[in-house]
Each structure stands twice: as structure tokens, then as C-alpha cells.
């Protein structure tokens, strides 16, 4: 049993018919085009968001362990209730940092302070993030300097008014970020000297940051002398879980079990990936609905076409077409229309994404 010659002929015949009904063809495949486009765009949106978040985490150093309030991302807790407490929970003190600093296998450790504030320089001003930490910050957060250097342990201890600017902040205030080197900036009417500028990270937390020694923040910027987190870096992967346990024990002397959590960034990543998995599924489902509607559109038009073309069907039957041949012809047209619409949707999506 052969069909109307072969698929090539069927598709050629389908195209001949499209040429005669350009408007109808365009409108029919438009449904599929929009359907495919929305599926692709929604998937791209979901994946892009997920990649962005993953990148932010990857830009932090390896084997990073974070001490955070609440039990937001811990594997036993989780869920929305604990998410809430993480914003309202405890804050850490310098004593906590110093206590953790006594643990042997931690290679880098910094307390983390963050607050938004207006940075003024060069008669310009910009709202950025005032962040306090110590000399280990570049190692823990993967910061590279494009000019100057990071503040030292001595700078931290002496509460020196030396700051490091993020790339975007320096660019906004000074034009060329490198020009910021050696200049002074004002925060809360206090004058600080810029001793370095970090390279672009693509993360507003870092690119718009003004980094200063944590002890320097203890004046007007951080009068309560508190930290929202403490970051620890452990070089040896094998020791991570042991060190985490030691950190927990240290903190348990002061806090209750569910008041804080000690998490690796990979745990946070897992939770986030789970959330994005669900979001993606929802987005694909929404996109599929428009694809389904497009498909129904083609079904409708083909149904109308069959009625419209009874004469042509009659002629083809008279010269020897079987019912199957006729069905294949209309099927070929629908499939070609769908594929055309789909390819067009993909092309538009490729241009947009």
C-alpha cells in the first residue's frame, strides 16, 4: 500500500494549497507559533531565573558554610514558617564570631553586616549596600580586585576608615571605576578612603557594595554591633561536616537549636532548585495551554477546509484516490502547518531569548 506517492509530494501539494490561501495559512499557524513561543519563553524564563540564582551561589567561594538565624534552609525544618523566622530571628554578635574563630579547621571566617545607605562622592550620590566584614571576605566571596587591595587584619583591628567599592558603585560615582582609587567617599557624614575596587560580579549585593572592616561599622553605622550571618570557609571538603557539627555545638551554648542554622551553600542550592523545579512545571503547564489552543485552532480550520473542498475531494476520488489517500493529504497539510508554526515560534523565541 503506497500513499499519494510519498511525503515529499504530499507536502508539496500542501504548500501549493497554502499559496492560494495565504491569510488563512498565516492565521492558522499563528496559533501554534504563539503556543510554541510561550512555551519556549516561559521555560527560558524559569531556567534563566534558576541559572541566575545558581550563579550567585557559585560566585561565592567553595565549601562555604553559612551561619544564619532561624532554620530556613536546614533539611529537617524548611517551609514557609521557618522562612519567616529567618527575617525576624536572632542576630549574631562579635563574641559568636570569636567563639567560632577558635575552631581549628576553619580556614576563613568573617562576620557579615549589611545595611543600605547613601554613598556620596564627587558631588554625586548613590544608594548602595554598606557591608562590614574582615580581611577574609575576598576569599569567601570570590572577590577580585581591579585596582588597589583589600583591607588587612590590621585595618580591621584599628577600625581604619578604609573601604573597598563594588564595581558599579565606583562606576556611578567616579565614571571610570579605577578613578575611585585613593579618593574619598562620605557615608552618614563620615569620610572614608577608597583603597580598592572589586571586579564586576553581576550580583547587585556585591557590585553596589561599599565594604569596610566590621569594627569600623560599630560607630554610627552598626551601633548594636550585630551581624546577620557568619561565613566560614573550609578548604578540605572531607572536614566540612565535622566542622559544621563543631560550629553547631559552639553556638548551642548560647542559642536554642532552632534559633540558628549552619548550612552549606549546596543545601541552600538544593532547596532553591526544588522550588524552581515546581515553578518551571507550572510555567510549562501554562505554555502548554496556549499550545493546545493553537492545536485546536488548526483542527477547526482543517475541519472547515474539508467541507470547503468537497469538490476537490470528489475529483481526487474519481481519479483513483482512496479514502486513506484523502485523509493523508489533509493530515499532511495539518502537520505541515503545525511544523511551520512551530519553527516560526522557535525562530521568534531564538530572537527574543
Amino acid at each position: 500500500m503506497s500513499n499519494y506517492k510519498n511525503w515529499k509530494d504530499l507536502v508539496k501539494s500542501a504548500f501549493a494549497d497554502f499559496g492560494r490561501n495565504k491569510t488563512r495559512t498565516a492565521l492558522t499557524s499563528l496559533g501554534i507559533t504563539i503556543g510554541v513561543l510561550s512555551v519556549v519563553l516561559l521555560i527560558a524564563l524559569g531556567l534563566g531565573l534558576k541559572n541566575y540564582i545558581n550563579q550567585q551561589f557559585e560566585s561565592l567561594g567553595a565549601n562555604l558554610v553559612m551561619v544564619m538565624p532561624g532554620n530556613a534552609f536546614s533539611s529537617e525544618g524548611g517551609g514557609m514558617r521557618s522562612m519567616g523566622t529567618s527575617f525576624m530571628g536572632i542576630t549574631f554578635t562579635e563574641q559568636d564570631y570569636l567563639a567560632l574563630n577558635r575552631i581549628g579547621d576553619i580556614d576563613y571566617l568573617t562576620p557579615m553586616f549589611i545595611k543600605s545607605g547613601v554613598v556620596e562622592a564627587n558631588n554625586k550620590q548613590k544608594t548602595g549596600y554598606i557591608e562590614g566584614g574582615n580581611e577574609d571576605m575576598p576569599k569567601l566571596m570570590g572577590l577580585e580586585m581591579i585596582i588597589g587591595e583589600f583591607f588587612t587584619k590590621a585595618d580591621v583591628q584599628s577600625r581604619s576608615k578604609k573601604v573597598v567599592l563594588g564595581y558599579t558603585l565606583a562606576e556611578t560615582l567616579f565614571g571610570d571605576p579605577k578613578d575611585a582609587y585613593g579618593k574619598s567617599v562620605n557615608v552618614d557624614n563620615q569620610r572614608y578612603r577608597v583603597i580598592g575596587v572589586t571586579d564586576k560580579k553581576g550580583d547587585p549585593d556585591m557590585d553596589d557594595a561599599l565594604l569596610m572592616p566590621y569594627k569600623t561599622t560599630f560607630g554610627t553605622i552598626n551601633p548594636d554591633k550585630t551581624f546577620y550571618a557568619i561565613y566560614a570557609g573550609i578548604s578540605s571538603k572531607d572536614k566540612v561536616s565535622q566542622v559544621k557539627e563543631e560550629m553547631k555545638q559552639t553556638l548551642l551554648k548560647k542559642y536554642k537549636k532552632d534559633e540558628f542554622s549552619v548550612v552549606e551553600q549546596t543545601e541552600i542550592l538544593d532547596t532553591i532548585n526544588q522550588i524552581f523545579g515546581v515553578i518551571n512545571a507550572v510555567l510549562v503547564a501554562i505554555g502548554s495551554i496556549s499550545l493546545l489552543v493553537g492545536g485546536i485552532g488548526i483542527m477547526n480550520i482543517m475541519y472547515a477546509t474539508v467541507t470547503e473542498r468537497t469538490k476537490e475531494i470528489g475529483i481526487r476520488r474519481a481519479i483513483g484516490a482512496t479514502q486513506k489517500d484523502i485523509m493523508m493529504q489533509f493530515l499532511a497539510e495539518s502537520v505541515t502547518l503545525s511544523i511551520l508554526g512551530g519553527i516560526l515560534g522557535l525562530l521568534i523565541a531564538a530572537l527574543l531569548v
Partner: protein
Amino acid sequence: MLLKLQNVYKTYNLGEEGVHAVEDVSLDIKEKEFVSILGTSGSGKSTLMYLIGLLEQPTSGKIFLEGKDVSKLSDNQLSLIRNNTVGFIFQQFNLISKFTVLENIMMPAGYSKGKLDFDPKIRALELLKRFKMLERKDFFPNKISGGQQQRVAIARALLMKPKLILADEPTGNLDSKTGEEILKLLEELNKEEKVTIILVTHDREIAKRTKRQIYIKDGLIVDKYI
């Protein structure tokens, strides 16, 4: 005997009552015959033609084509016989407007299921040459005259070297001069190609051109045309 109809009925169900479009028709048509079926509109001559052309199946009775009972065949088998044994010519020409003259003529080859013993394109071009229409081969049907369209339709009917050609009012849409040309062409084909032609018409003058006339009235074969 090329074609034999035995007590053929075709009944359409209109509401509760069945209507006999064709009633108890028996007839024989010999090979190479040129015969006309004459009847007014509504006489059942179109239904009879569809039955002979295997586009419709009889409600009862038997149809034999080349001695073979074709009244109970499947759609695939009937389509195959239509494709390689029967050629149709219609009043409305019935060319497909989106295809060129040559593509229209070659269409039946596209539905042939076996291997052909000839090249359909060469045969199509030969037929066009014979009908003096070779230079029109790439024209679309709406760009050529009615007489030319009917010649293309005849070429399409002849492509698969059929035994039987069914012509339904082939001159009905043509002026008398062009109609005459088409009739002459059919006579010529009957003589030279040895193809059986059944001419279905309501026109007594046209029917006279054939050697034998079959009269049909209210679905019945009658002796005289009234």
C-alpha cells in the same frame, strides 16, 4: 463484454421512504463501444454513471467489469479500478485550479498503487502534443479556454490507458463549435485508442452521434426517449 449490470438498484433513504434513483437496471456494454445514456435531469442518469464509474455501490444487484463482480469490493479495490480502468470527463471540467495543466494530467499517476509500464510525464506530454496544447502545459486552468480545459480533462482521463471513459455532459459548458470539436475528439479516441466511451447527456442531438443509445427515465431503462 466490458461492462454488465444485473438488476441494479440504488436506493436513497429520504425520511421514512426509500427513493429508487436507479431501479432494476440491466445492461451490457461491449468493448470499444461508443454508447450514450440519454435522460432528463433527475432521470437517474447521473446515479447510473456513478454506479458504472464505481463511485457509488449498488443497493442490490450486480455490476461486472471485465467479467469481475465489482459490486461488493472494498474502497481500496474500487479506487484501484477507478485509477487504472476508468477515466472521467465532467461538464465542469473539474481540473484542480492550484495545479498546472501538466500537473493536472499527471495526477492519476500519483494514486497508482503498482509500478507503471510507462513514464506518466512522457505520456502526459504526448497527449498534450496530440491535443495541440503542448505550449499550454505550464498554464493554470483559469488561464485557458473552456475547450482547452476540457481537452486537458480528457488527457487526464486517458493518462492511465483506461478501458472505459465516462463522459458526463462533456459539451454542456461549451459553445456549439467547441462542443463539436470535443465530440470529434471523443469519436477519434474511440476509433483509434480502442477505448469504450459512455456519453451521458440529456441532448438527443449529441446522443445521436453514438452508435447506440440507452434511454433512462425515472430510474428505469426505457425503449424510447420521450
